[in-house]
């Protein structure tokens, strides 16, 4: 294969780029999990920094929930270790870890009031009554649910339940907060609002958040770093802008945002894929490239060698609010997606171009 990010570089990215290694809170070391014959996680290694908002992103079946449950203590890994703050976490039962979870279905206790739900952890820890009262009040205030203290969970809305679940976890001042797709049951608008609230909250309390979701937009909005999980393996761990502009693999490129995947032949520093050709600095051979639709534009007549030009015919276009996604055909069979803000102006036969540097080499899918 052609150019691909070296394994070592990938590992370095999974550790903390630009961060002080001493502020690692959680260290996941070669965690693997098999259920019967089915391997869900294949040796995952990941370091999480203190105060970081990390999102584990993946589709269903990727193993993200299993990984979260292993950190929380509800599952035992088949092999590997989890370390937190210099001590081993995995042998401990859930009730002895300084980790709290916000469940996807909230799991509020139906027989207790909102207040009693939030007070549960402190009560179990046998804190003095006065302190419990103070903490519960603070926690409810932080999620802006003070007025609902005496309500039963069945009497409040889904969004409100979600906030109580959050308060119930935070009141214990955990070192690490795990959130298992907590927003998936909310409608789109409420969801967007909660994303911002959660992000703000995390900044305020400074606790490390590990957030699990399948929604790539959500991941990009909220995270300091994203860990992309696919079929039990980490595809890439990087900040959102890096995953977007420099995806490491074809899967990463396709999962996040739209992209055009180009299977190219490289000869004499020229990559050729279908009707497209552009300059690269790579050895001869085959390679896969990711080209984002917004990187393709109408030809502007520049003669720069780093600009690749081609003719195409417009097939159809889809309205996406601020931009249009236009499908074009190059030659007989090659189809590309182009994103343009020029509504309605790309029609019929057009000349398009892109900067060669915008075609990012990625690791193709494993055979």
């Amino acid at each position: 294969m052609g150019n691909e990010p070296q394994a070592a570089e990938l590992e370095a990215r999974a550790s903390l780029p630009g961060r002080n290694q001493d502020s690692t809170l959680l260290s996941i070391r070669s965690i693997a999990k098999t259920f019967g014959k089915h391997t869900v996680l294949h040796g995952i290694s990941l370091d999480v920094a203190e105060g970081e908002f990390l999102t584990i992103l993946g589709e269903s079946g990727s193993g993200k929930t299993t990984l979260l449950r292993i950190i929380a203590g509800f599952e035992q890994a088949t092999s590997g270790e989890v370390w937190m703050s210099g001590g081993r976490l995995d042998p401990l039962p859930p009730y002895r870890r300084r980790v709290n979870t916000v469940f996807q279905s909230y799991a509020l206790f139906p027989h207790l009031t909102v207040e009693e739900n939030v007070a549960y952890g402190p009560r179990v820890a046998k804190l003095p009554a006065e302190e419990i009262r103070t903490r519960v009040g603070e926690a409810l205030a932080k999620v802006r649910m003070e007025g609902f203290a005496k309500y039963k969970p069945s009497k409040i809305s889904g969004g409100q339940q979600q906030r109580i679940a959050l308060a119930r976890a935070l009141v214990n001042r955990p070192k690490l907060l795990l959130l298992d797709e907590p927003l998936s049951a909310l409608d789109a608008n409420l969801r967007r609002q909660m994303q911002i609230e959660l992000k703000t909250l995390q900044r305020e309390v400074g606790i490390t958040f590990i957030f699990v979701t399948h929604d790539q937009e959500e991941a990009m909005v909220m995270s300091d770093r994203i860990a992309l999980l696919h079929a039990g393996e980490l595809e890439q761990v990087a900040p959102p802008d890096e995953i977007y502009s420099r995806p490491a693999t074809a899967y990463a490129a396709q999962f996040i945002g739209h992209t055009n995947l180009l299977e190219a032949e490289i000869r004499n520093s020229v990559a050729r894929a279908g009707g497209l050709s552009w300059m690269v600095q790579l050895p001869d051979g085959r390679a896969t490239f990711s080209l984002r639709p917004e990187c393709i534009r109408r030809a502007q007549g520049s003669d720069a060698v780093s600009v690749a030009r081609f003719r195409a015919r417009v097939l159809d276009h889809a309205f996406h609010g601020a931009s249009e996604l236009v499908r074009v055909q190059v030659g007989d069979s090659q189809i590309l997606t182009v994103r343009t803000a020029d509504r309605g102006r790309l029609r019929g036969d057009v000349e398009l171009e892109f900067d060669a540097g915008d075609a990012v080499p990625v690791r193709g899918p494993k055979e």
Partner: protein
Amino acid sequence: MGLFMTANSEPRTPKLLAIYAALVFAFLYLPIVVLIVYSFNGQGVGGFPPRDLTLNWYRMLFQDEAIWASVLNSLTVAGASVGIALALGIPAGLALDRANFPGKGIFRRLVLLPLVLPGIITGLSLLMLFREVDLKLSLATVILGHGTALISVATTEVFAGLQKLDRAQEEASLDLGATYLQTFWRVTLPNLKLSIIGAALLIFTLSMDEIAVSFFLIGRDNTLPLEIWGRLRRGITPEINAISTLIFCFSLFAIVLWYRLRTRADDSVAAAELLEVA
């Protein structure tokens, strides 16, 4: 019941709890095991350890005409009771699911009452009814008693089955031109097949074993439990052990069958839902 929830990986089964549960199981099965073992015991019921293993008691059993006559009676009663209970229980289940009428709540509780009520009350009240209308006691009166008491079994199973039925299927049938009767026959009933079979099995078994109600409504012909009862009053014979063992085996067979049907019903619903999500 959520009997198909997959087990979460609970790391340790509490030892004490498991031992306690094992003891409870032992308690539940002890008499049955003793019964079976001693049905082969040469010395009858007394003596430990059991010796002289023999099939004598079984041989005696098979030559006992009175017992087999009563078995036949029981089968007749059970079969007829299934008929009555289903004939009334299926409409009752439909009514509870779909119709609203004054006194519906009372009706529902009334129908379920015989299940929780000590059999003696059901038996005696019916006895008084039959007396007032001068109906002679016979297997027919027993059938009426069993049928009435067991309607609730059919009703509950059918009602539960209806909850799993997608109402839209019946609506689609009506939409496509079928009448209510045709819809019932072609759509509702096939969907309730497993519930009905399960109910029939349960009703049959309960009727075969029924004593309390039968006690008061029996005429000259005995059902099996009452035949056994009569002999018990006169003293213990090991023959009883033999017939009890046979009854146990049949019950075992029936309940395993019922359970498989029940879980097959849950399975097919779960499978359907899975397809929907995927």
